[in-house]
């Protein structure tokens, strides 16, 4: 790294978070540069939210080095938080107050003069397409609108770094796309985004770089394309056989593709050439009930790295 390289907004080395005997985050190293959109992927309990809370300076690290915007969260929490925007996993809006009041209160928390908070608040409501609801109470708003309001609120202090914990969980597809669109615009304006998600399409849409977290550690790190190349094949062939015939079929498929995975309801062939692979399947006189050739996705990477067993 040369001397004039920008300083990372987030810098972590050997970061650990423990709750009693439970190790939520188990020694992670991380650098997020200005302007990046960085994602944490992982199943529930992987340590994403604990990491986000440490970055958001509401949870002191148990061990390791952490610098946010060049400052130490252990001693400079309020100064750092003054420059962060946070979209928490659970909405923390006041449902009985109006949309605008929610923004004004938040502006007060940051010490903004009332007039500034008001003007900025209205600009932000316009940005998230809620200006016409400014004087309505929050209660009757849809989930997507509440999410957009939370995003508007997180921007009231013009943060250098925006932290989003599962920004679109629980939203319908239309609402998700509106949120993604707004986040993409923020990214284009140069706002650094750090988000957690367990939606692979969200990660592919928004993140320049991401890590897959599992059991408190980073299982993999890279751009979405990197990760697919490294941990999966270009194509995936999905084959469905009659009930109970998957295992038998898999034996006959041996040697096809880079890797075979037998699931209860289908067999997956990971290969560089899906169509070629599928014609080879037919050459071997196998007759699957249905077939699908598709591109590999982050989901394939994710399931390979974190396993298919259910995490509760």
């Amino acid at each position, binding site marked *: 790294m040369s001397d004039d390289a920008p300083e990372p907004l987030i810098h972590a080395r050997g970061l650990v978070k423990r709750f009693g005997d439970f190790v939520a985050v188990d020694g992670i190293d991380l650098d997020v540069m200005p302007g990046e959109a960085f994602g944490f992927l992982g199943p529930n309990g992987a340590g994403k939210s604990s990491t986000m809370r440490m970055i958001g300076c*509401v949870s002191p690290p148990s061990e390791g080095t952490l610098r946010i915007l060049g400052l130490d969260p252990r001693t400079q929490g309020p100064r750092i938080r003054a420059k*962060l925007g946070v979209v*928490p996993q659970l909405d*923390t809006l006041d449902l009985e107050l109006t949309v605008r009041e929610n923004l004004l209160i938040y502006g007060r928390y940051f010490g903004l003069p009332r007039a500034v908070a008001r003007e900025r608040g209205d600009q932000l409501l316009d940005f998230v397409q809620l200006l016409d609801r400014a004087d309505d109470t929050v209660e009757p708003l849809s989930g997507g609108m509440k999410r957009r309001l939370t995003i508007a609120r997180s921007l009231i202090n013009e943060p250098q770094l925006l932290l989003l914990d599962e920004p679109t969980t629980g939203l319908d597809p239309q609402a998700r796309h509106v949120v993604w669109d707004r986040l993409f615009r923020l990214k284009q304006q140069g706002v650094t985004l750090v988000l957690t998600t367990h939606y692979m399409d969200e990660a592919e849409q928004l993140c320049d770089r991401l890590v897959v977290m599992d059991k408190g550690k980073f299982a993999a790190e890279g751009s979405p394309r990197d990760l697919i190349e490294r941990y999966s094949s270009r194509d995936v062939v999905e084959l469905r056989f009659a009930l109970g015939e998957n295992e038998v079929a898999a034996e006959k498929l041996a040697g096809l593709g880079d890797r075979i995975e037998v699931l209860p309801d289908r067999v997956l062939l990971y290969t560089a050439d899906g169509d070629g692979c599928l014609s080879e399947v037919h050459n071997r006189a196998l007759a699957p009930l249905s077939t699908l050739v598709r591109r590999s996705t982050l989901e394939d990477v994710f399931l390979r790295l974190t396993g298919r067993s259910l995490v509760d």
Partner: protein
Amino acid sequence: MTSASFAPVLRSYSYWLTVYRRTWRGTIVTGVLSPVMFLAAMGVGLGSLVKGGSGNAGTDGLTYLQFVAPGLLAATAMQIVSFEATYPVLGSFKWIRNYHAAAATPLTSSAILAGHLLWMATRAAMASGIYLAAIAAFGAIRTPLAVLALPVCVLVGMAFAAPITAFAGSRDRDSGFAALQRFIIVPMFLFSGVFFNVTQLPAVIRPVAYITPLWHGVRLTRDLTTGQLEPGAAWQIPLHVLYLAALVAVGVVIARRVYRDKLAN
């Protein structure tokens, strides 16, 4: 506290002010109706049956209205914060989660707590102020010293608010709050010298009355609205104040720890 560290407290406080703007009308109506009803029923109605004997056995030579009014005044501060320090505190952690929203900003957990406590003090002052005015309207105030009963009521309120906030903040559910009312607030209301001198209680349970914060509060408010000190009892006044202040201090220390554990762990 320096002015630099007080600004965040006011920011936290302003949240409660904003929320109150939605509900103030209802609280004013209750705030006026409640003293009028209690003073009329207890002071005037029931009081007509009470022959004000002298000394500790009676009403210290006061009319019953004069006797009971300062007791009800102090009890009001207790009752108002026993609500403000329970459901809104738990709700701020668990339901509305406004504490968590504030904790993501430059506000510290201590500032969030202090702002809310300051708001409870405001509510105690408002309710007690209205009550004091009602007592004056009933003609049961005998000295200008009575205005000092207002800060005393705020102190009484905080002697309950701080420990109850610590308790409520450490709860995960609201199930303890009904028990708090039933086993602590209501018995104190009945047996801490509001309606009769605690010297009327059997000797074995009298010490229990003496450790209740409400008893100390009632002693102070009664001295201040009637201007009638027990002979040789003036030295007890600073002790009552210190006792109440100590409860505030203990409550704040515990509540700070609870808030830090929940908002910054």
